[in-house]
């Protein structure tokens, strides 16, 4: 028996099967929605051109030597064809990035790859040049080694897996490409700020035009057309921008280059000056009191966010917070804290024993000393707490997941509750009972 298939249906099925084959569109860097896209089209073009000239596009990278990045000097030889031209490290880093990182972090490093919208927490958007887990002082960029460490260890509690088996050389290249993407995004935002300050926003242009119309009206002379005035204003603004553009780009790039170079200096690293206090019951108890702001003159306010029992449920997580930089002030639609990228963010639940930035005592010391960039976690080092006090808090934080008998560091607090501590214990017990 022969099955008669109508020809149209055959064509339809083949077309359906073949759909999706063929070349995908080439990867391109997208403009920043929260910066460049807010400028007038002419300024957008200018900014786009600056970025294209200095950074290229994913298929044609430009290695701008201004930045402290090892782009890879040529190593010509018969065996290494892929290393015969300058910038091979950046290229190789890009290839690895495209293979391992792109689907979450996006081609432009904007944390908006194809899988990003399914993830919570969201993948990092590198373009602000802000990274959470680093060993350097609060305002500084992360050191190269910090980013390698994140790639090696992954970030437990998030979707970031470990890439440790790629090996140091490849990880180094990925980190350099990520730093380069971050610099590119940072340039874009900073140049946007410059251009916006020079009046290249639709709002500024409109108000200038409005003023000119007003003046013309008062002069009573010939009334110029609105579109003509608009054209003229834009031309003036763009002329002002283009005249100083080279210099502006140079200055902004120098600032960014300097900030990344500074992160590599040994004195930028937070190194505790005193050894960790052994996690004795007494030290844990002192840490607990500091955590609960029960020590005179030491307002740590840890419990306001992390909660009295460390569950990440402090009172600050139950308020609606204003969006920074909005006038008139608007509030976030979701309750609780938000990070610098505008996503809801929970203070760490310290009872879980999951430490995103690493579980070494020095990691937690650095989080407390310098805070966490991009979040509401402030730094306490050198201002509120001294080294010994930070170690006490570290010891307390590390002891939280192990309460009672399960703890290798059973606290005196358990057996001989002191007055004020006992209150908290009761409260915790109440929390648990609910």
């Amino acid at each position, binding site marked *: 028996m022969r099955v008669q298939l109508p020809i149209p249906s055959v064509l339809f099925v083949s077309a359906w099967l073949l759909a999706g084959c063929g070349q995908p569109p080439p990867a391109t860097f997208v403009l920043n929605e929260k910066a460049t896209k807010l400028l007038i089209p002419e300024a957008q073009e200018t900014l786009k051109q600056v970025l294209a000239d200095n950074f290229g596009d994913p298929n044609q990278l430009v290695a701008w030597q201004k930045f402290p990045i090892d782009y890879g000097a040529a190593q010509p030889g018969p065996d290494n064809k892929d290393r015969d031209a300058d910038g091979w490290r950046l290229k190789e880093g890009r290839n690895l990035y495209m293979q*391992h990182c792109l*689907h979450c972090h996006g081609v432009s490093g904007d944390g908006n790859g194809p*899988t990003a919208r399914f993830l919570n927490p969201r993948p990092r958007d590198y373009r602000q040049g802000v990274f959470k887990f680093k*060993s*350097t002082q609060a305002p500084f960029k992360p*050191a*190269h*080694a*910090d980013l390698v*460490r994140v790639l*090696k*260890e*992954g970030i*437990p509690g998030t*979707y970031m*897996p*470990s890439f*440790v*088996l790629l090996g140091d050389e490849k990880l180094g290249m990925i980190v350099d490409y990520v730093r380069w993407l971050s610099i590119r995004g940072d340039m874009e935002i900073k140049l946007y700020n410059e251009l916006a300050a020079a009046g290249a926003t639709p709002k500024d242009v409109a108000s200038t035009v409005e003023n000119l119309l007003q003046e013309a009206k008062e002069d009573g002379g010939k009334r110029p057309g609105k579109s003509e005035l608009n054209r003229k204003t834009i031309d003036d603004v763009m002329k002002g921008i283009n005249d100083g553009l080279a210099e502006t780009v140079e200055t902004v790039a120098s600032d960014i280059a300097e900030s990344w170079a500074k*992160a*590599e200096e*040994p004195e*930028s*690293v*937070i*190194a*505790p*000056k*005193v*050894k*960790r206090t052994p*996690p004795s019951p007494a030290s844990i108890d002192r840490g607990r009191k500091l955590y609960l702001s029960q020590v005179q003159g030491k307002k740590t306010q840890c419990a306001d966010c992390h909660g009295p029992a460390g569950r990440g449920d402090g009172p600050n997580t139950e308020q609606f917070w204003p969006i920074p930089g909005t006038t008139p002030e608007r509030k976030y639609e979701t309750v609780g804290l938000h990070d610098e990228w505008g996503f809801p963010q929970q203070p760490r639940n310290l009872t879980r*024993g999951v430490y995103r930035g690493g*579980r*070494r*005592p*020095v990691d937690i*010391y*650095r989080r407390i000393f310098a805070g966490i960039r991009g979040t509401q976690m402030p730094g306490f080092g050198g201002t509120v707490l001294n080294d010994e006090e930070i*170690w006490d808090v570290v010891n307390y934080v*590390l*002891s939280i*997941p*192990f309460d009672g008998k*399960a*703890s*290798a*560091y059973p606290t005196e607090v358990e057996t001989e509750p002191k007055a004020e501590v006992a209150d908290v214990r009761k409260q915790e017990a109440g929390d648990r009972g609910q």
Partner: protein
Amino acid sequence: MNRFWCFFFSGAAAIAVLFSAIGPSYGWWFPGASFSPLGAQIDDLFYLILVITSVTFIGVHIVLGYILWQYGSGKPRRASFLHGSHALEVVWSIVPAGVLLFIALYQMDVWARYRVKSNFDPAAVAHPVAEVTARQFEWRIRYPAPGKTLQDKPQPDDLYTVNDLHVPVGKPVLIKLRSEDVLHSFFLPHLRVKQDAVPGLSIPVWFQADKAQVYDLVCAELCGWGHYKMRGQLTAQRAEEYKAYLDELSQTQFDDGVAAKKNDE
């Protein structure tokens, strides 16, 4: 069309046999000989079943080819009516059942050694080397502190790593396998060990690596889009190297950074 189907089916079978025969020399086979005693036994079982199925496969295809040759000539001939054969039905039920029963009984020993906990090495059961927690898309590993026993709940002095499981060489070791999110499968191809990781369960898995080297650890259960890159490695080390590794891990993990000179080291 006279004898087309005869050549088609016999040819397909012949090609399958040919490819299976030359496969090993092209590396289309196991990743080398097994590196564990149990793995060798599992291979033996595999080869036994391979022999049984190959004999059956070739036999069936010879008969099929013969019948197609004989009756596919296109000569008109009357079919003879047959109301079944009791003896034949008994034979073709009993023989495969006997083969299956033989396999079922024959493999019990190896299965029990691999899966029945009372047969595990008591020393390995008493001191599991690590807890391996699979999650999308990595293997998180928790060792007990050197000289201590792994507890079900994390302990303050536990040691943590990711994707790189170290075990002592040449003796049975046991890990506790967990999953944080979805089904994964802990697969050590060189040791012929494969065990699903199921969320909510802590599954004991034992194995023995006889050679001190690095083995592949892969996920063998499609667990999401990143399944293919959920790779780890198993490093089997001599006792003193293993101890040194754990000591170093311990030192790194409890580092207070006071001696740190360079960035984050």
